Each structure stands twice: as C-alpha cells, then as structure tokens.
C-alpha cells in the first residue's frame, strides 16, 4: 500500500479524500452499510490496489471489482478451442501475451506450445498479419480477444488483410463489449450497486453515450475515469456527489482523452467487420445477450470459426469450472477472493486455476500481489 505523500500531488489527494469522506458521511454510508461502487475496468482494479485507494478512502465505501478484464471472463471452452486450432498442422497461432497462461481443460496455450504447437505471442494483430505475409505456406490465426479497446485493432487488421487479399490469415474472434454485462449485473436482483466508475480507454473508442441507459433506466451514476490515483479519487467523488444530490448522470472525468462520441474511425471499422452474436458466454456470468461479436459473413474468408469449423459457429460448448473455483462468485461481487477455497490453495499467479488469478487486472491476482497484510486483517 502507498501513502498519499508519494502521489504526484499529495495536497490534491488529501483534499479529495477529505471531500470523499464528507460526501460519504452525508449519504450515511458506513462500514456495515457501505455505498457500493463498481470499477468496471481491470486496469482501475489494478490501480486501486496498487495505490491502496480502497484503504485510503472512507470505510463506508466498498469497491466492487467489475468484469472488465477480458482474460478473466474468457470461458474455458474458448481456451480449449484456441488450443485445438493451435495444434492443427500448419497453423501458427498468435495471441496477446495475456492469454497465454489462461487454463483450459487441455491446459493453456503456453502448455500447448511446450507440447510442440506453434504458438507465438505478438504485440499487435498487425504482427500476425505480417507473419502471414512472411509465411505464405502456413495458416496464421490471430486470437481476437478484448473489449472495445482492442476490437478496432483487429477490425482494421482484417480490413487490411481483405484489401491485400491475404488468404492465409484469419481471426478467431472472441471480442466482447462492455455495456451488456453491466446491464446483466444491474438486472441481477442480488446485486446492490450504487454507482460506477467507467472504463477510460474503452470509452476513448465508444464515447460516453453507450452508458446512458445506466443513468436513465437504472438511476445509477457513472463517471468515466482516468488511471492516475487522482483521477480515480476525483471520479469516486463525482459518483458520491451525484448520490448525495439524488442525481444519476453519465459524467466524463477523463475528457482530456475520452471524446464524447468516441473515435469515429474505430467505430466505423468495428461496425463494418463485426456484428453482435445473439449471446455469448462469460466466465462467471453465464450467457449474456448480444455481448460478443462475430465476423460478418462478407469477411468469412478471414474468420477462423468458418475456416476451421470451430467455436460458436459449431455450437456453444460450455465447460464446467475446475472444482472449488469460485471465479464466478468473485466476479459478481458475491464473495471476496480470499473467501474462495482455492485461493492460495492450488491457485496462485504462478499456477492459476481460475482466470481471475492469471492477469494483473484480475481481482484475485490483485489481492494476491498487494494483499499480504490486508488479507490477514480481513
């Protein structure tokens, strides 16, 4: 945990923390009956733990860690399909590094690589396209994973492949979108959320209006936030002030990066290449309507599902979670990571059993990395 003195502007941080305390008291929130704020983005989860923000603010505020870590919500069946494709002869399977260690029933992509599959970590889908140019006799597949931050990159890469008519490149599309799971969480009668801190870089692409329904239909405030501790504190205060005044609005704390209407080129590319699937499975959250994207039929030649007859095109295949793994309950805020029977008991960042332990943006990995002393205290 960090101290305010180490922040870029300690004076501003202290002032924000004081105002947050004042607003929390005014709302009447206490440790026993806290105001519950969900930070949607895994990057925000990581920053909250890194800076110990949850311990610096009034004890009447509880952070609920949202579903915004794409690796963490990836169902095992999809990992199995990646491994299946990667082990086909002639395939070079390319992926962002984050997905390498996610366990499936046949192990992870890392283990598939160790068994001899040609799995390569790339920084960008453009690297995968370059690999297919350099290896015309191989079939290069890119694992399209992530929210609206990475979706434009695969859409634009696919459009480039189409322009060049590159035949040996395809995308295994598992892109997901942020708003549908938020609606699912808000529709869950068990869920008791009072407000949201909205994702910064996703919103840079989609703008702030896709969140309008949260304020309009559910009466909850949401504030799109940056990644600095001061951004997060400011955003929490903006959520609290709305609650205190009985308002529910979509606000943009990160306007220096997030345009109101998003990035037009990105949105056009997403629209051209992808369409929503009727539904998509999320680890821990189950099937959610229109929450995943698939490649439009016009681009079937670059769709790995079509090329290999795999994935949702071949029918959904649900795989049960490993025994005792409580990723689902943690993800929906029902339990804290430390309450999972497998936390530190067969599941750690070195040997993750559940997806929340894999990524630094996952709640369990964050608890593990920054939690030592605090876990004991809880």
């Amino acid at each position, binding site marked *: 945990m960090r101290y305010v003195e180490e922040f870029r502007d300690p004076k501003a941080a202290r002032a924000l923390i004081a105002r947050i305390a004042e607003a929390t008291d005014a709302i009447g929130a206490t440790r026993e009956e806290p105001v519950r704020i969900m930070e949607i983005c895994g990057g925000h989860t990581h920053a909250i733990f890194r800076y110990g923000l949850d311990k610096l603010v009034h004890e009447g505020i509880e952070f609920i860690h949202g579903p915004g870590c794409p690796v963490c919500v990836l169902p095992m069946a999809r990992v199995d399909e990646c491994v299946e494709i990667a082990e086909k002869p002639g395939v070079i399977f390319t992926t962002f590094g984050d997905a390498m260690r996610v366990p499936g029933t046949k192990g992870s992509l890392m283990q598939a690589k160790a068994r001899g599959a040609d799995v390569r970590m790339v920084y960008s889908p453009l690297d995968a396209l370059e690999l297919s140019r350099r290896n015309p006799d191989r079939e290069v597949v890119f694992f399209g994973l992530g929210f609206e931050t990475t979706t434009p990159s695969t859409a634009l890469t696919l459009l480039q492949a189409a322009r060049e008519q590159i035949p040996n490149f395809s995308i295994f599309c598992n892109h997901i979108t942020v708003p549908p799971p938020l609606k699912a969480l808000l529709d869950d009668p068990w869920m008791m959320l009072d407000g949201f801190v909205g994702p910064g870089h996703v919103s840079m692409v989609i703008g702030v209006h896709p969140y309008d329904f949260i304020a309009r239909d559910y009466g909850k405030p949401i504030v799109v936030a940056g990644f*600095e501790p001061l951004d997060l504190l400011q955003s929490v205060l903006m959520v609290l002030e709305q609650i205190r005044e009985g308002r529910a609005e979509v606000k943009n704390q990160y306007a220096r990066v997030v345009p109101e209407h998003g990035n037009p080129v990105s949105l056009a590319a997403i629209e051209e290449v992808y369409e929503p699937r009727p539904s998509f499975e999320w680890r821990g959250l189950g099937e959610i309507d229109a929450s995943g994207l698939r490649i439009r039929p016009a681009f079937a030649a670059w769709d790995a599902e079509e090329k290999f007859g795999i994935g949702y095109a071949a029918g959904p295949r649900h795989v049960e979670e490993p025994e005792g793994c409580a990723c689902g309950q943690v993800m929906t805020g029902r339990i804290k990571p430390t309450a999972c029977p497998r936390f530190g008991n067969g599941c750690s960042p070195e040997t993750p059993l559940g997806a929340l332990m894999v990524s630094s943006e996952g709640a369990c990995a964050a608890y593990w990395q920054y939690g030592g002393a605090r876990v004991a205290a809880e």
Partner: protein
Amino acid sequence: MCLGIPGRIVAITDEARQMAMADVSGVRREVSVACVVDGPLDALVGEWVLIHVGFAMSLIDEAEAARTLDALRELGEAQEALDAMAEGAKSLEGTT
C-alpha cells in the same frame, strides 16, 4: 493489453497503409495511425499519441503523455507493453 501507452510519432513509414514509426519510451515501433489521421499524414510527425496494440488511438499533449507514462510505470504496465513489443518482434523473426 487494455491500457494504451504513450508514444511520439517520429516518421511516416507507409502512406498507403497509414503506418508511422513511433518512439515508445526509447523503443521504436511501427504503428497504424488510421484512427488519428485528420488531414495530411506528415502533420502527425512530432505528435504524442496513445497507442493500443499497435494502433494510435488518440492524440494527447506532452503533459498528458508524461502523466500517463508515470501511471503505467507504477502499475508495471509500461514495462509489460515494451516487453510485448520485444516479444512481438521476436515472433516475427524466429520460429518461436
């Protein structure tokens, strides 16, 4: 993967494909500028951008770039992005 990293456009490398060379904390990396281009490509040289998995997604000013880099360093995400770039370059060359 979800957090962008600031970089500075130093040259246009491919007009047709809208590609440019960016300097990302001292590492050179070719990126697409398709999402931030608004007028002649050359006008982007010298600009700071927020780069996501090889795509410049937003123009930012120098102060914002510095603040974002600091925040990413604190989270270990800056190094992660630079490592991923190095790993990506290796994947293009070798057989692993």
